[in-house]
């Protein structure tokens, strides 16, 4: 059996999830130059939001009915927390030293993790997430799970909707203007405060969709799921060029595929057995990041160099 097509699909699926989360990092950075380290946890709360909806729904509800409701639940929870964080944690610090909101973001990330750990029933260990019934699909050598289908459909649609929103709508163009020059945008009558809230909310909504995909794919959600995934998504955002929404998606896909390929094939290179295998996937992901940053500091599709934290 030829493994390559399956490994490619594995990588693309993982990468799509990174991409969905990376959008939130990149949008917020593009507009307020803040690396929102709490974004991974906003992703996590989205997962728990979806789980809560599932638990409230009467038992025996089919996934066709439950899934849209769960997505809505996830989006509501994640955007509420993101907008709340913006309003109460980041806005008071706007205009202050750049380091202050960054540290706040890290603190918020820990606080959200611990809050879910402490107060969500049964969240002290993994909670099982409902799965879409139905067997896996086979296309040649490639097996695709039902849970992955959601990701395959959701990621491109999300991307298209976001592209349309940013390019074609008034608010979207306002976002572009604010990203280019917030002061001038304000002078031109754009309510930049509102634009920033929209950026946080949109990022959270995509993270929430990513979280539902995570739950469906792995069959569980847990309070720490946002930490490593957030870090990877942030890497994807930097890889693709932070500030660029298409860069986030491309960065995610490149990272996902590179990681999977490294895990699958590095150990087969003579003399590299020790550095192969899934446990080294993260190391290779960061090697890739370093290489890209060395030769293309602005990232793959980058707009500007991330010179400010």
């Amino acid at each position, binding site marked *: *059996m030829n493994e390559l097509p399956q490994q490619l699909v594995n990588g693309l699926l993982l990468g799509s999830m990174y991409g969905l989360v990376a959008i939130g990092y990149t949008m917020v950075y593009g507009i307020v130059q803040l690396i929102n380290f709490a974004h991974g946890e906003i992703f996590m709360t989205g997962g728990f939001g979806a789980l809560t909806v599932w638990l409230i729904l009467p038992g025996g509800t089919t996934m066709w009915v439950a899934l849209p409701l769960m997505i809505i639940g996830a989006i509501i929870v994640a955007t509420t927390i993101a907008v709340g964080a913006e309003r109460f944690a980041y806005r008071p610090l706007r205009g202050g030293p750049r380091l202050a909101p960054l540290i706040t973001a890290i603190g918020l990330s820990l606080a959200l993790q611990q809050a879910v750990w402490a107060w969500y029933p049964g969240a002290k260990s993994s909670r099982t997430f409902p799965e879409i019934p139905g067997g896996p699909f086979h296309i040649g050598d490639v097996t695709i799970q039902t849970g992955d289908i959601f990701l395959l459909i959701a990621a491109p649609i999300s991307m298209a909707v976001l592209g349309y929103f940013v390019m074609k709508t008034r608010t979207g163009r306002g976002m572009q203007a604010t990203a280019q020059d917030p002061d001038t945008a304000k002078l031109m009558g754009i309510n930049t405060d509102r634009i920033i809230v929209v950026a946080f909310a949109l990022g959270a909504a995509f993270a929430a969709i990513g979280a539902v995909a995570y739950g469906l794919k792995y*069959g569980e959600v847990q309070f720490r799921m946002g930490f490593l995934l957030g870090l990877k998504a942030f890497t994807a955002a930097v890889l693709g060029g932070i500030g660029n929404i298409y860069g986030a998606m491309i960065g995610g896909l490149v990272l996902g595929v590179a990681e999977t390929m490294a895990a699958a094939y590095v150990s087969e290179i003579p003399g590299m057995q020790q550095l192969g295998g899934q446990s080294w996937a993260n190391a290779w992901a960061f090697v890739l990041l370093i290489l890209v940053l060395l030769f293309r500091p602005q990232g793959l599709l980058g707009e500007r160099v991330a010179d400010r934290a």
Partner: protein
Amino acid sequence: MRQRSLIAITAALAAGALTLTACGSRDDKGGDSAAGGDTTVVIGVDAPLTGDLSALGLGIKNSVDLAAKQANEKKYVKGVTFKIEALDDQAQPSSGQQNATKLVADKNVLGVVGPLNSSVAESMQKVFDDAKLAQVSPANTAPALSQGPDWNGGTKKRPFNSYFRTSTTDAIQGPFAAQYLFNEAKKTKVFVIDDKKTYGAGLAATFKAEFTKLGGKVAGEDHVDPETKDFSSVVTKIKSSKADVVYYGGEYPAAGPLSKQIKKAGAKIPLVGGDGIYSADFIKLSGKEGEGDLATSVGAPIETLPSAKEFVENYKKAGYKEAFEAYGGYSYDAAWSIIEAVKKVVDDNGGKLPESKDARSKVIDALKSVSFEGVTGKVAFDEYGDTTNKQLTVYQYKGGAWAPVKSGTFSG
């Protein structure tokens, strides 16, 4: 004005803090006198009480608590009241070491039960040994902890005098699983995976050695990062290797999702692991796909041992929220071995506990000769501090629960 109010607030806070500390110390004294002039002996507990492995850790804590309560109820050691002090190590070696330092600093601590993870134990051993404080682990299975790093090369040397355990080591557990799989389950091609931690890598290595010695083939090997949940690249490799069984050295938080992903990808082969996956949480995490998976665990099934009936009943009666899980019986026995040792020290000293520093090293000496009928059978330690009980059991995930398949002792 602003300045003044700030001062006022600071003063109020300081006063409040002082009052609180005062309350604290008064409470402590109250507790002591309530025990009727008894000396308080604290049994430290170190286990992951939060995080992925908390199911096992809380089982350990509750079981030690039960042992302490029963010793107090029976007035097992005259003039001594046992208390437990449970610290959370989150399965992290660094936290474990901090906890060890904390426990050493508390003069009333005469013995510690824990930790769960072999990697955490490594970071704690020296701290305890320096302070001559006895440590009895209910769950560490890495052989090097008690037999030195060269245990496999034939030169066994006990590195730390203060370290004991009630669980069997991987030197026995891995080969036991290999023999069962090769001889009885008739599996010949195995894919070996571990999580690179002390426990997982050691277990996988001992398993692999025995399996190849018996004539089995290793179809492939990989290491995973237990922090991630995406094992798709490994799963694809397993599928194309055509292995008929997967052996996983590691714990259930990764093993559960791994098993599920293997089966969902279309490789209908069982995943086999050690006591680290023998948990109800493995069943939850692997879902219905995990049916047929196997786990070895130390000792005979607790529920079937006559000696354990009382423990199971008392545990139920005490109304703990969490189940006692895989290590409950071993934790109870570990705690009880410390209680026995304290009793011996007190008896030898004319019914009184010696000074703390003295008492600690005397407890270690007493532990060496402890021997009693515990929950898991006879509890005694050999010259390395390992349990003399070499019983193991293979369990299978059947119909939503672990069912014992075969019990036995491993012989060479």
